[in-house]
């Protein structure tokens, strides 16, 4: 765990440095193309570099507020949502964290949850209304434990920075691409023939950079989040000592077809399961998937609990939710001939 914390801290610094360098390069390319010549390039390099440093600092200190605002989450107290609040406190104690994260609710029927913040002292956990209504206490506990392990090992810091910084790179590149297509900046006034040629080359470079930058940033985002989800599942179980709770919760989430309206590409990787639901869940994660295949996660959790998939529906009060959805290939038809495996 300490290893993870250290690597997350290091990765956060590297990411901020990487973004500052990338944006400065982007600034140079755009500046050289738009304003013309290396002087224009250096000018925009400075502007972009300073802007990137400023944005990184803002992202570090108030990125969680931005993420929560974008997600449409509102803060709740113990009086509003006693059960959710209690579950969060329980997991705080299990994780041995000094204080409980702030609790937020997203008023949407979709099933999802995320955690954000820069460290365990400044952390928030957000849960959708649908998740609170459709999942039982044990399942909510599993979900919150998963989020709490993100909090404990500083995943939240890195993931938040990825969201904020990747979002910005995409924004700048988008803006530039649109500008270049509609603004038509290729012809600078008073330029000779050779200047035009150099300008055209630089413009091509700028375009390539502008296209590559968000791609590079996105692939970082995809690569980091998938392994983290498996890890958080495992350490969440370490907190609850109950793999079945999280397994059943993930099964419910997989069976729910509703996408989360408030999620977007910059925040998708924060959630416990892919909130966009844009494609069918596959066995293998593709290059551009932010989350590992949910069925694989469930299978790993069931293995931890030493039970078969029938345990997902056995003994639940709201068994109809998962059974009716019927989208899980691992679910055998409920047959009385199969006795539930004993819990070890």
């Amino acid at each position: 765990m300490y290893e993870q914390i250290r690597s997350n801290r290091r990765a956060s610094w590297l990411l901020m440095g990487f973004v500052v360098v990338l944006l400065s390069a982007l600034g140079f390319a755009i500046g050289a193309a738009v304003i013309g010549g290396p002087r224009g390039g250096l000018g925009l390099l400075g502007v972009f570099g300073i802007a990137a440093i400023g944005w990184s600092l803002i992202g570090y200190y108030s990125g969680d507020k931005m993420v929560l605002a974008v997600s449409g989450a509102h803060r709740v107290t113990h009086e509003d949502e006693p059960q959710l609040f209690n579950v969060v406190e329980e997991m705080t104690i299990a994780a041995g964290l000094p204080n409980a994260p702030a609790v937020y609710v997203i008023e949407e029927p979709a099933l999802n949850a995320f955690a954000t913040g820069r460290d365990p002292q400044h952390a928030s956990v957000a849960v959708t209304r649908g998740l609170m209504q459709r999942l039982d206490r044990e399942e909510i506990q599993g979900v919150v434990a998963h989020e709490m392990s993100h909090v404990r090992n500083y995943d939240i810091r890195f993931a938040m920075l990825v969201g904020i910084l990747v979002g910005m790179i995409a924004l700048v590149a988008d803006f530039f691409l649109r500008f270049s297509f509609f603004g038509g900046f290729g012809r600078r006034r008073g330029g000779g023939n050779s200047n035009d040629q150099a300008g055209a080359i630089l413009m091509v470079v700028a375009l390539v950079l502008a296209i590559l930058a968000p791609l590079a940033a996105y692939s970082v985002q995809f690569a980091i989040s998938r392994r983290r989800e498996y890890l958080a599942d495992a350490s969440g179980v370490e907190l609850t000592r109950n793999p079945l709770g999280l397994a059943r919760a993930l099964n419910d989430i997989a069976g729910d077809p509703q996408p989360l309206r408030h999620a977007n590409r910059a925040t998708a990787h924060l959630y416990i399961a892919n909130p966009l639901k844009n494609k069918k869940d596959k066995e293998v994660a593709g290059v551009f998937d932010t989350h590992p295949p949910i069925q694989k996660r469930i299978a790993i959790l069931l293995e931890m609990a030493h039970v078969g998939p029938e345990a997902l529906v056995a003994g639940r009060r709201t068994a109809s939710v998962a059974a009716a959805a019927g989208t899980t290939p691992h679910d055998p038809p409920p047959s009385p001939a199969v006795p539930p495996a004993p819990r070890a």
Partner: protein
Amino acid sequence: MRAGTIAGHVWIPPWRTLGAQKRSQRKECLVIAVIIIIVILVLLGIIFAGMYNSLVSRRNQVDNAWSQIDVQLKRRHDLIPNLVEAVKDYMSYEQETLTKVTAARAAAINAGSQGPQAQAQAENMLTESLKSLFAVVENYPDLKANQNVLSLQEELTATENKISFARQFYNDSVLTFNNKIQMFPSNLIAGMFNFTTRQFFEAPEGDREVPKVDLR
């Protein structure tokens, strides 16, 4: 390399200064040996300090974990009179269950000053009595619909969970702390500075499952 100047200095071939070199070599050896010894001592000191500090921080973690359990146990003790008050009008035929809970609570409060083992025993008795109380509550539809009782039940469930998670964290902390005290080489430091192993907060077999009282 030829004789000549290297970085401004005149290079003197070694065979011309053999005697002087031997003397200076011996001196150099001595200096190097002293430096090595100092470095080793400093490194040892750093390692010792590191082990000592980690022992202290582990001990603080154990104390902190214990105080967490304490906080939650107190909270449970405070909640129980409210619950008994809320249900007693409905449960006039269940006086025995209620008195058991009240007695177990009193015993648990008394055991608070008698060390982890005694306290754990008394608290486990209290958990058992609460379990039977909640089992009885299931038989009273009026009670199950009572908002006050429901919220008290949620609070008690949460407190039970918090106790068991705090106990889990306490025991994990004690395990790491005791390991550090007993394992080489940190056991040397632990012996020097009088670090002693701590007791686990024992849970009875099958107590991992907290009473199911949510009526969703």
